[in-house]
């Protein structure tokens, strides 16, 4: 993973000092609430319903055991002993004190972590595939490019006060696990016929109040131009994005209003000034960035032997076998696997981790995965490089710690925001809905029979849990002070991205589990042998589901 040199460390230390000064001036009354707002947001600090919330960046979701231990320590020393993995691969603390935040940031800086630009109207943490650098289906490791984007976007002087927040996602694999269609900018790493690396760039995707699938702005951008091209897009957006209405301020609205061709013309015009200029990435810079993401010291393993031994173990234990099929995915190195630790155990808030669990995960990372960890936007934790021969031992340990729920990609692997229990923006609670659904559908055989189903629950229109792209999406709405839930079907975040359609009038919270049951029954009734939930929905449409649910 990326290791700071003296430049990075100095900049991050200077940021802590800057924010400490700003906090002191705020507490002394020298900065108004209004002026302090963007300053604290750009350091990840929100004021929530009950207390401040600090969002710490995990750049492109990659971190290590030592950093996880720091999260555990901070949650104990400054919080209530737990933290929450967000839907953008970050980690959130729900109870820090505003005056303690400079100290927290100072401690984070000692392990090369920060909260820079995790909120505010600026370029946010760049996200990517949680299996980056390990996935069997990737054409390249996307992280060196993510790192270059991280550097360029960090403290960018021109783009710290954009019309609205700005999110960039990068993908380099056949399956799109980064949802590049649904970001302000999606960067798809591609190879041309000569085998050269370049980028297909999508622009103007996003969720929130007005969900939009991104549009291609260029089909092959040679790699050295990545930063100048991104800079040109941002410069057009910064000048022309709407600032009169925050609900119409995202780049998706600008792209739609101008039309992609006119928008592209403007970008090309700006790019003409920047192209081939000093921000063109040198070959040496690429090599340097790549040098941080070399593979760990893998052992040479005969994959067929490892597979045979694993099959033997799986045959002996059905639970282990089920876990293997759900929580373990293909690695590019023979004899290795990627393991997803489920943070979706029934009875626990999705994505939440206690301090002890964080330390247990750090131990497992060191024991089984070269100390490396990943956070996924589905709010799980990944051990990216586990030898197949160690999977059984890892599974046993994960079971003891409560991370071995074999539900990755299943209905109960719910993506869920903190909702009305914590968030000041929420219209409704989301966690109790997730809990009720997990309790109702806790039968492993039934979940297995249902197969892949993404269920996403957002507590408001801001769509932090991406309910528009869940196969089943649930949105909390406020109706005259009462919490109701709108259900939608047919969303997808993959290459064939689609936005879910609203089923009909919303439901009271206690009705939701039964509504989900009716939807699942309808699917089981309508499906052919090979069809997933999404396949069936796409074939039969909304009508049969609607008919049953509102019968």
């Amino acid at each position, binding site marked *: 993973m990326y290791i700071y040199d003296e430049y990075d460390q100095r900049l991050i230390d200077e940021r802590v000092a800057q924010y400490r000064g700003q906090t002191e001036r705020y507490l002394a009354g020298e900065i108004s609430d209004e002026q302090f707002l963007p300053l604290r947001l750009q350091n990840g600090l929100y004021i929530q319903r009950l207390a401040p919330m600090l969002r710490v960046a995990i750049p492109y979701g990659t971190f290590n055991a030592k950093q996880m231990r720091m999260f555990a320590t901070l949650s104990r020393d400054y919080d209530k002993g737990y933290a929450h993995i967000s839907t953008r691969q970050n980690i959130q603390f729900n109870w820090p004190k505003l005056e303690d935040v400079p100290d927290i940031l100072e401690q984070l800086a000692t392990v090369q972590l920060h909260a820079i630009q995790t909120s505010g109207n600026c370029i946010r943490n760049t996200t990517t595939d949680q299996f980056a650098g390990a996935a069997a289906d990737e054409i390249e490791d996307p992280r060196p490019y993510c790192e270059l984007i991280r550097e360029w976007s960090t403290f960018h*002087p021109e783009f710290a006060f954009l019309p609205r927040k700005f999110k960039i996602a990068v993908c380099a694999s056949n399956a799109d696990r980064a949802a590049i269609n649904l970001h302000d900018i999606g960067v798809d790493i591609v190879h041309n016929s000569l085998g050269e690396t370049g980028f297909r760039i999508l622009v103007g995707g996003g969720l929130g109040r007005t969900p939009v699938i991104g549009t291609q702005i260029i089909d092959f951008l040679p790699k050295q131009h990545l930063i100048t091209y991104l800079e040109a897009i941002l*410069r057009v957006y910064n000048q022309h994005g709407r600032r009169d209405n925050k609900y119409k301020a995202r780049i998706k609205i600008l792209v739609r209003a101008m039309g992609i061709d006119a928008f592209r013309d403007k970008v090309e015009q700006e790019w003409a000034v920047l192209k081939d200029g000093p921000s063109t990435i040198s070959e040496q810079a690429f090599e340097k960035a790549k040098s941080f993401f070399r593979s760990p010291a893998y052992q040479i393993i005969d994959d067929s032997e490892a597979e045979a031994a694993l099959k033997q173990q799986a045959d002996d234990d059905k639970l282990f076998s089920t876990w293997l099929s759900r929580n373990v995915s293909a690695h590019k190195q023979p004899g290795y696997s990627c393991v997803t630790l489920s943070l979706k155990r029934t009875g626990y808030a999705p994505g939440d981790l206690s301090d002890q669990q964080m330390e247990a995960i750090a131990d497992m990372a060191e024991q089984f995965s070269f100390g490396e960890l990943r956070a996924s936007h589905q709010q799980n934790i990944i051990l990216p490089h586990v030898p197949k021969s160690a999977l059984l031992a890892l599974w046993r340990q994960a079971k003891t710690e409560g991370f071995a729920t074999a539900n990755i990609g299943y209905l109960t692997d719910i993506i869920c925001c903190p909702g009305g229990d914590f968030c000041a923006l929420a219209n409704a609670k989301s966690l109790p809905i997730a809990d009720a659904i997990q309790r109702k559908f806790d039968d492993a055989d039934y979940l297995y029979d249902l197969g892949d189903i993404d269920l996403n629950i957002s507590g408001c229109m801001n769509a932090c849990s991406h309910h528009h792209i869940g196969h089943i999406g649930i949105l909390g709405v406020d109706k005259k002070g009462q919490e109701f839930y709108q259900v939608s079907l047919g969303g997808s975040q993959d290459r064939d991205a689609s936005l879910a359609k609203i089923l009909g009038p919303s439901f009271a919270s206690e009705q939701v589990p039964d509504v989900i049951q009716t939807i699942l029954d309808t699917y089981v009734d309508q499906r052919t042998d090979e069809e997933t939930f999404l396949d069936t929905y796409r074939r039969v449409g909304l009508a049969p589901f609607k008919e049953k649910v509102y019968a």
Partner: protein
Amino acid sequence: MPERLIIDSEIVANQWQLITEPGDNIDDNSAIIVPLSMWTEQRESLLKRPRLGLWLDCDQSPQLIAEDLSHFELVAIQFPNFADGRGFSYGRELRDTHHYQGEVRAIGSFIRDQLFFLKRCGFNAFALETADLEKSLASLADFSDSYQAAMDQPAPLYNRR
């Protein structure tokens, strides 16, 4: 315009009068900063004045007046509120795209904590309205280096390491 401001990291007295409406009272010899509309309407008479500056409102890109920039000793860019970041791009366009060499002055509701970024975007004069100027000077040096290329650093860090 405040009486004192920061220019090139020093606190100096303001010499310029900002004209926001064409009807404003103007001394014959004073240095004036005029809005774009006034320049368009009174170009010939304004050219006779000894010292002339241009005022760009928050939605007026320097692109609108690229050909005429050489007539102005300074360009003042308006920040209607500190969260409106369009002026940062205008600063860069003035310097990078149009190679403007005169003074680029930030005016309006920007804040001390933006000075470092403004400087990187090509601003060299800061007419802060309410801040303590002596203390504010420190914010020009919040960071000792930067990741990106900008006015103060022509090469991005990734090409320098």
